[in-house]
């Protein structure tokens, strides 16, 4: 095999393995950071600073009984957790990490990511349906309504970036930010996309589909063992994906002074992941009707206004 094939393989498997490992490490990192912000130790017993907690959790997940309820719709029950893992990992294929790291250079990269995130909804809906359990059903009904509503302005908030860079290609969008990051002209877009991103990955404060105080565990009530683990890792993958996307679209991707491009990308993404965790530590959950009202009555008009203003200014200056 020639050298270029090896580089492609390295890119493909490198991105795949690093994202999965990062998601696994985040299960520990999140609890440590939450502990830090909530003034308690968090998991600190296994290994130095609790770093081996990930392995302890993995051993536990693999050796627990993987129970499939008799009343479940079994093929769909098994399919549901794989959907979220698969779509999130495929979406990473179009994220440009540095000038020469990145799996593929799709001309509709941004739309591809949106498409994958809209397919990921199925995992929650099917999981809730297949469990044949009222808590799971209520959780997945909430998830479906929430994700479909927040997807609308998630796409709309990105169109400002597309207009400024003139392309759906994520690599070209990063290149267009060489002189200035899009967060400055598109601050409103950044804000809306960030909120929609939290809602898409169903993190606190938008985790009503799995609100444990009222729905046991929502859509994954009936899941155990590695199937539950896949939902869990899928959520962290979504957090990493949204952070990497915000870095790419609004924070100039790999652009930055002194440090090499790869380090800049990792730093920005890590900072955003910490912001996600800080939000979980700091903000309480809203009521479900408040969440839907906020989405349709505040965020959607804001996203449309942002779109209109950006288009108007671009036409004015052109």
């Amino acid at each position: 095999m020639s050298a270029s094939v090896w580089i492609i393989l390295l890119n493909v498997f490198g991105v795949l393995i690093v994202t999965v490992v990062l998601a696994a490490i985040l299960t520990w990192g999140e609890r440590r950071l939450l502990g830090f912000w909530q003034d308690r130790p968090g998991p600190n017993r296994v290994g130095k600073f609790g770093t081996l907690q990930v392995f302890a959790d993995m051993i536990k997940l693999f050796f627990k009984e993987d129970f499939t309820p008799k009343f479940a719709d079994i093929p769909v029950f098994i399919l549901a957790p794989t959907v979220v893992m698969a779509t999130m990992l495929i979406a990473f294929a179009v994220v440009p990490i540095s000038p020469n790291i990145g799996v593929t250079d799709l001309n509709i990269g941004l739309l591809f990511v949106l498409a994958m995130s809209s397919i990921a909804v199925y995992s929650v809906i099917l999981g809730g349906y297949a469990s044949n359990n009222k808590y799971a059903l209520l959780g997945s009904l909430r998830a479906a309504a929430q994700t479909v509503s927040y997807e609308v302005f998630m796409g709309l908030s990105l169109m400002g970036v597309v207009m400024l860079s003139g392309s759906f290609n994520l690599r070209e969008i990063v290149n267009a930010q060489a002189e200035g990051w899009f967060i400055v002209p598109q601050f409103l877009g950044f804000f809306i996309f960030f909120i929609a991103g939290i809602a898409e990955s169903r993190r606190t404060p938008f985790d009503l589909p799995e609100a444990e105080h009222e729905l046991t565990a929502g859509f994954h009530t009936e899941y155990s063992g590695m199937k539950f683990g896949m939902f869990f890792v899928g959520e962290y993958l979504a957090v990493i994906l949204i952070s990497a996307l915000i870095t790419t679209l609004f924070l100039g991707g790999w652009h930055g002074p002194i440090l090499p491009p790869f380090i800049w990308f990792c730093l920005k993404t890590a900072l955003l992941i910490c912001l996600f965790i800080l939000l979980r530590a700091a903000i309480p959950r809203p009521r479900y009707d408040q969440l839907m009202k906020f989405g349709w009555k505040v965020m959607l008009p804001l996203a449309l206004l942002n779109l209109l203003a950006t288009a108007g200014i671009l036409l004015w200056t052109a």
Partner: protein
Amino acid sequence: MNYIFYLTSAVAVISTAMVIFHKNAVHALLYLVTSLLSVAIIFYQFGAPLAAALEVIIYAGAIMVLIIFVIMMLNQGDASVAQEQAWLQPHTWIGPALLSAILLIQLILLVSSGQISASQSYHYIGPKQVGIALFSHYILAVELASMLLLAGLVGAFHLARHRKTTIEE
């Protein structure tokens, strides 16, 4: 290139057939999602990436989700599977099957006579070209569609509006 097309088309045809013959509504819808995804791949392969992306985002990602949402709320169990079983008798499907078989024969004849050439001469149409075509040549259709959607929106809003009798939050 060609074998990818044939493979995706086979997936599309088989999954669409499964949509018709499957008795469980949710399983049938999952096949429909598969069929939409394979159609999206065919669109992409023939140089229409925007159509492919919209097929996945809108049809597979939004409309199908809403349909599954409704079916989930109706919570049909084994009873509806038995009902479907009863409906799928030969006397219900043989008529439409015969009629569509005639159409299929016509299509095969047309293609084999070379009147519709399945040629390779397709060209790439990016998002920009689609936008330009929509807002210049087809502007009237876009406006009409948007009015129809607005009417639907107002109608839905009217139906779901809060009455005085509901509990204030």
